[in-house]
C-alpha cells in the first residue's frame, strides 16, 4: 500500500524531505521503521515518536493508516 510519511525538525534535515510516499507491504509500524532506518542511516541517532493518521502510537502498532509522521521533540525557546 501507499504510505505518506511526514518528517519534522531534525528528522526532515536527515531525510532532506518534509514528506514522501512509500510503497510498503508489511504490517507493523516497526517494520516500516526498519525500512526507514536502512534508507536514512542517521535516523537511528534521533529520539522521535510516531503518529499514525494524526494519532500517536507505539512502534508495535499494526500499520493501518495511510499517513505516518515522525515527531522529534524540540527544546528551543
Amino acid at each position, binding site marked *: 500500500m501507499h504510505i505518506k510519511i511526514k518528517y519534522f525538525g531534525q528528522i526532515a534535515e536527515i531525510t532532506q524531505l518534509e514528506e514522501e510516499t512509500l510503497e510498503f507491504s508489511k504490517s507493523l509500524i516497526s517494520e516500516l521503521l526498519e525500512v526507514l532506518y536502512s534508507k536514512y542511516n542517521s535516523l537511528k541517532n534521533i529520539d522521535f515518536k510516531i503518529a499514525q493518521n*494524526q*494519532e500517536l502510537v507505539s512502534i508495535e502498532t499494526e500499520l493501518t493508516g495511510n499517513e505516518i509522521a515522525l515527531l522529534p521533540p524540540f*527544546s*528551543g*525557546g
Partner: protein
Amino acid sequence: MTRYNRHIVLSEIGQIGQDKLSNAKVLVIGAGGLGCPISQYLAAAGIGMLGIIDFDIVEISNLQRQVLFGNSSLGQNKAIAAKKRLKDLNSDITIMAYPYKLTHKNAVELFNQYDIIVDGSDNFETRYLVNDASIITNKPLVFGAIYKFEGQVAVFNYQNGPSYRCLFPNPPEKDTIPNCSEIGVLGMLPGIIGCMQANEVLKIILGIGKVLSEKILYYNALTLQTSTLKISKNEAAFATILKEKINVSKKVITTNCQHEIKEVSIHDILLKENIQIIDVRELYEQPKINNLNITQIPLSELEKNLNKIDLKKDVFLFCQSGVRSKKALSILKTLNINNCFNIKEGVSTINNILNNRSSLKKEQLKP
C-alpha cells in the same frame, strides 16, 4: 473608552470575561524568544497577576527576536528587564519578576501561587521540570517549543488530560537532538508560537474555543503547514511523577550542543589572575600539572561537584586531549553554568608550554 474595551465589546468575552482575566494568575517560564511575546500579550490582555522567571541576562544576540528588550536592557536580568517594559504597557496589573533559575527546589512552591503555567524555556531539563511540577501542583501547562523554522504548541495537564511525558516520556538520550540555547532560529517563529501560547492561556481562562489539549500542534514557518496530532494519556507516567515527586527531573540531560563552546589556548590564560583551572580527568590519570593551581573534578563526578566550581571567576577546563573537557562544558551549559571555557590543548601540550614558560621566567630573573 477603557483599556479593555476591545475585549469587553466581544459577546464571547464581555465584562465578565475581562474580570476573569483580571483575577487570573499566570506564570511564564523564561523571558526569551517565547517568553517575550507571551508575557507581552498576557500583560496587555490584563492578566491580573503575571509572574516571569528567568535567571539569564539580556545579550545582544537576544535582540534579534526578544522584543521586550533593547540596548537599554543589555546586561540586565531578563525577568527584571521584562517587568520594567511591561509595567509601562499595563500599569493596572501585578507583575512579579523572579530573577533566578527554576529548580526542583523552588518549582512546586512557585507554581502553587499561580493558576496556569506557560513554558517558554529553552532546554529539556527545564521543560521536564516544568512538566513534572505542573503535574504535582495540578496546574494546566501551556507548552511551546521551537527548532529553527518549526514550532510545537500544546496544552498539558488540562482537565485531567495528557502531559508532556505522555508524548515524550524521557528527555532525549541521543546526541543529535540539540539542547542548546545557541541554535539558530527564525526571529518571527517564537513570535508566532508565543502568541499562540498566550492565545491558549486566554481560551483556558475565558472558557471559549477549543483548548489545544490531548493534541500537539506542529507549525512550519517556511511551508505554513500545520499538523495537529492526538496524544493519549499515560496514567503510569503521572503515577510515577506523583510518587517520585520532583526528583525525576533532577537527572542531568547530557545531550550535546555543538555550537558556541567557548575555547581558548593555554597561552591566553597564563597571565590572567583570579581564574580557576579544572582538570576533568579521572583522579588516577597522569601526567599531573604541578606549576598551576588546579581543581580536580573528574567528568564522571561533575554533576555531584558543582559546588567546587567558582561561579565568580572565569573557569578553564582541560583533560587529556580536549575532548572530555568539551563534553564537561556541554553539561555545564545545560545546567546554565556559563562562566566556563575549554582549553583546546591536551595535558601534555599544556605541560610543555608551562615548562618553557618557567624556564623563560628563570632566565629573565637572572641578574
